[in-house]
């Protein structure tokens, strides 16, 4: 029995799109994250990965399904209890420039969660300590966000996120806007914080190389659903869903390879407006058959493995076939 800090079941979130009906941004997502580990949620824009993150943090209400964090059902608790729960779950977003108040000093930004949640103790000392934890010099406390570099701003956002010692942090593309050398610094910081504090992460990213480095488990989303889930090592070594294979093949590598071998799948993710018949990936899938176009494959555990995939041919279709 694993110790799952975060358990989500059957999450559905629909949005009304003017004149075009309902869009199911998240369409039946379930996931579990073991305490102190990282689950990466990967997929292309519009696949629903950020919405899933917001549902887990109770920043949005699902239309269906449940989320529990540390055994508490986050969408069912009363307002006061939700306030307490919020101390234990925090977000880190892509662009710290958007998520940091430009009129507050770095010190005020990091102290704000302490103030809002009436944390006791010597606040200035705690702010200094938090800045040092994220490898910023405490002298930055009097500066404003616009005076900092992108990497420094993201460290401030991380310091704010960990101020109340959260158990669960959702990182939504936290390093996508940073230069590579700075990316590596921030990624190392996130990992060190996990090691030291046992933080559980949902790491939302389109960057498979980073995911490979950071996550124990990976869930791949396509059009509002998880299409494959497994340990990072196994999923990267032997992807079973054709979409996972496509994503892996398309990810650029920093070395020259045979260019004709570079994958260019036809088409782009279609819209999730309207209903589905059959597998949502079938129109782009090199392995699609008539069955795929009529029968929607369920996400199922592959026999004898620690892997789930939503593909009729997950057992037979092997790497190289796509």
């Amino acid at each position: 029995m694993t110790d799952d800090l975060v358990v989500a079941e059957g999450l559905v979130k629909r949005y009304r799109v003017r004149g075009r009906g309902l869009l199911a941004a998240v369409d039946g997502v379930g996931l579990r994250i073991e305490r102190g580990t990282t689950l990466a949620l990967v997929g292309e824009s519009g696949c629903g990965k950020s919405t899933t993150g917001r549902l887990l943090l109770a920043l949005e209400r699902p239309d269906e399904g449940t989320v529990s964090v540390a055994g508490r059902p986050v969408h069912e608790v009363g307002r006061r209890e939700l306030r307490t729960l919020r101390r234990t779950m925090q977000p880190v977003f892509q662009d710290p420039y958007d998520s940091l108040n430009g009129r507050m000093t770095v010190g005020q930004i990091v102290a704000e969660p302490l103030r809002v949640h009436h944390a006791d103790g010597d606040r200035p000392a705690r702010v200094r300590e938090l800045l040092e934890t994220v490898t910023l010099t405490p002298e930055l406390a009097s500066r404003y966000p616009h005076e900092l570099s992108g990497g420094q701003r993201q460290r401030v956002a991380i310091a704010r996120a960990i101020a109340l010692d959260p158990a669960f942090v959702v990182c939504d593309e936290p390093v996508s806007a940073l230069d590579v050398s700075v990316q590596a610094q921030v990624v190392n910081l996130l990992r060190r914080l996990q090691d030291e504090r046992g933080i559980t992460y949902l790491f939302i990213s389109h960057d498979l190389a980073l995911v490979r480095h950071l996550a124990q488990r990976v869930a791949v989303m396509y059009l509002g659903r998880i299409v494959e889930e497994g340990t990072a090592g196994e999923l990267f070594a032997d992807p079973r869903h054709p979409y996972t294979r496509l994503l892996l093949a398309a990810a650029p590598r920093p070395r020259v390879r045979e260019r004709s071998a570079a994958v260019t799948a036809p088409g782009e993710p279609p819209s999730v407006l309207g209903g589905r018949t059959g597998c949502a990936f079938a129109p782009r899938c090199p392995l699609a058959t008539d069955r795929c176009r009529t029968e929607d494959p369920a996400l199922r555990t592959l026999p004898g493995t620690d892997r789930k995939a939503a593909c009729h041919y997950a057992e037979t279709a092997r790497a190289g076939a796509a």
Partner: protein
Amino acid sequence: MTDFLRIRDLRVAFGEGREAVRGVDLTADRGETVALVGESGCGKSLTALALLGLLPDGAHVTGSATLDGTELVGRDERALRRIRGARAGMVFQDPMSSLNPTTRVGAQIAEVLAIHTRMRRAARLRRAVELMESVGIPDAAARAGQMPHQLSGGMRQRVMISIALAGRPDLLIADEPTTALDVTVQAQVLALLRERARDTVLLFITHDMGVVAEIADRVAVMYAGKIVETGPVAGVLDSPRHPYTAALLRSVPDPDRPVAGELPTIPGQVPSAGEHVEGCPFRPRCERATDRCREMPGLTPAGGGSVACWHPHELTEAAR
């Protein structure tokens, strides 16, 4: 002389002592794709903008850049206008900011043809649809009647590429053209650029070493306004000579080769624009730096390329 594009000692300064591009030398042949790589603030975009006279007011450009013998630096706006579109095209990161949001995309392509060709209106619109087909836009005739916001990011970037190619340019500058796209769409757009840039010089600006590996014939790595290393793509990626190139490549995670423990990083920070570093600009962050590095090393031939370093890494066996 075969250097179709020839950049000599290009400098871009914003006011006294605030030089952002500090003497760039670069050549490229017709049909060659050169990737200009570096982190933000290294001067890669300014270098490209300077070639097309697109720098903001207050930027002072010196040096020379010739395209098939035609000087691009120091030309007046009229001459530059003629060069842009007819001889040089440009694709930016965000097509939404380059396209007119209130005009149908077919009409926008036709507009470019109106400036640079003598085609009649009906012929221009037909040509616009052909150009859209040529960049792989399905159902181009119908798409031509759509507004930019009705297209996906990948389709919008294809429209930008078709506009940039409309005048059959000798030089195509692409500044982070796939950075905002999803990986599967990025792969498509890179394949398109590879295919369509066969007769032009493609100057491809990016921060992404993975993209460099996919598109470039040659690489020029920039740091603090200077090219620090240049050479054939395989040589630079497999066997980087400059410590900055090597450190940058090490800090890029590779999905096939996970690193145990921490990702390698580069200590310190890029010098800010106008900040003066005596000698080699990478010296304060460099693990190989010595006293000699207080003197600026010139770009000198090494292996198949050039490197500006007193203590470059040795070529590996494979690259020799």
